[in-house]
């Protein structure tokens, strides 16, 4: 074989080189995928996680005065064990009548800042860009595009309970 000419030998050498180059590139890609994919999945997991929800006991029904809007705190269901104080979520809770309660998210629907309840004016006001909401959560003024988000509230065994749920982003159309 080698006697025939010099060309085939170089060609064989080239083939060999080309083959090694291909193998190396393919294996490098495999190594790359093996190293990154598990980590990537791990990091991206929260994006696709379905939000957990459960009912949280807030306080005795009789602790709340009819017509008053107060802040309440409860443990958020999505939080990790080491979340510390950020495991808690706040809400504005109002007793409307003997049996009815409404709970508003404290997150402004503009960009998420915490809204304040101004009792005398019966308005929620946002410190960030001047968003204002009426007592039913509807937008009264300023930039918020949507009414305040609400939580489900129910009364069970004489206690007020709120269903934990993540506060929707302003643009979240699943609301």
């Amino acid at each position, binding site marked *: 074989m080698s006697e025939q000419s010099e060309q085939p030998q170089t060609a064989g050498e080239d083939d060999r080189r080309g083959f090694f180059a291909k193998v190396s590139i393919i294996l490098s890609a495999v190594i790359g995928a093996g190293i990154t994919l598990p980590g990537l999945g791990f990091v991206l997991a929260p994006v696709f996680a379905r939000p957990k929800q459960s009912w949280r006991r807030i306080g005795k029904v009789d602790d709340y005065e009819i017509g008053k809007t107060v802040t309440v705190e409860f443990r958020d269901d999505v939080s990790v064990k*080491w979340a510390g*104080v950020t495991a808690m979520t*706040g809400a504005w809770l109002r007793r409307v009548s003997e049996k009815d309660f409404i709970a508003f998210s404290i997150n402004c629907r503009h960009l998420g800042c915490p809204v304040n309840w101004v009792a005398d004016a019966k308005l929620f006001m946002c410190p960030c860009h001047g968003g204002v909401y009426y007592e039913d959560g509807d937008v009264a003024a300023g930039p918020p595009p949507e009414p305040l988000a609400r939580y489900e509230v129910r009364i069970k065994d004489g206690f007020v309970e709120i269903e934990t749920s993540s506060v929707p982003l302003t643009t979240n159309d699943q609301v």
Partner: protein
Amino acid sequence: MIGKIWSWIDDRTGFSDVVMPIMKHVVPDDARWWYVFGSATLCAFIVQVLTGIALAMVYVPGGDAAYESLKYITEDATLGFIVRGMHYYGATAMVMMAVIHMTQVFLHASYKYPREMNWMSGVVLLFVVLGMAFTGQLLRWDANGVWSVMVAAEMAGRVPFIGEYIAHFILGGETVGGSTLSRFFAIHVFILPGLIFAGIGLHMWLILRHGISEMPKKNQPVEPETYKENYEKRLHKTGVPFWPDAMWRDVIFSTIVVGVILACSIFIGPPALGPSPDPANIHANPMPDWYFWWYFAVLSMLPPALETYIILGSPVLGFVILFVLPLLSNKGQRAPSQRPWAVGTVIFGATAFIVLTIYGYLKPWSPDFDVKPLPPEIVKSNDPKIQEGALLVHQKGCLYCHDIDGYGGHRGPVLSDIGSRLDRGELVIRISNGGYNMPSFAASLTAVEMDKMVDFLLTRTDHPQEEEKADN
């Protein structure tokens, strides 16, 4: 003996062969003080790396302990106060130096041929540095930092179609919590610094490859065909070795920068930690670090229809424009005197930055929750009805947004002389119906309250004496 050891090290590492020629590479002799900002940015980065490592040895990036560990660093740890201060002022210095460095390069058009990529790598570095500043703010883990991230996630959430995914990726879940903090920590201490190291490496390599640009001269426009040759020739004639002929200025300036960082952290100290990030604590008043105030102001002034486009578009557009700048204009005049548009852009940009920063600090669009009731010397009336009206104006929140003789917020028009502009009927309509950006108060005011308030408002005129006489 020492000489022997040194020559062994020198031989094996190649310090004299490789590093010294780099140190001594020839630079134009007219570089002088204009050119010290780049090295100062690098110096500030070194401050950040060293203090950052020190902080990371004590800081706990967990939602339950971060705040406490920062408190420990600030209040108890030996020199912790100073280290945290240095990290904070170092960040400020780095952002400032990077922006000044960039402005200087832009003004002198040093980004033109063959240094386009120097500029482009610099633009990427700038945005990474801003990312560092932003992620660092969350690591403080006080109410302010946490709410700022909430705001950022909401902004990201506005990206069409995938916004929600991006937001949840940033937050590491549905809300700001423990997972958000560890995410930001990893980004702040591994990912972004890695990018910065790589970016600085490239940036410096490009400086060596293309040489430091000369001071622009009017009769010396950049011609890509002949530039390199002429540059080499001039450098050969007038250039000086970087070390030590040019470097001493950089060293002096960097000494000043580090001195200022140290002095600020010793005498002013790190920024006070806000209240802990209890999401139920709604009395937070989120505000970013000062170099983002201008953006904060922009966000507040946008008409809602444009908002989403500007929130999302302006950073991207800003990046793209800066990034491609050297590709759009890479030859011709460099002297600022020949480039009025460049000078104009810098002046306009700087003015806009200063004005918006001040505006962002004052926050005139924000209701003033701390406003005090009007004192009697402003109410100026013995009529109990009017006095009650004045009290109602405070209680019902009017003063949060309206100013009366220096009391109140600035969101709405000043009411100091509203009595001369509107009559009773108009006032009642305005208050009950609300209007552009004003809530309607029809549901939250009784007829009697409305009456008292309007009575009071009618006394707010620009000629109070006459009004009083007319009343009598």
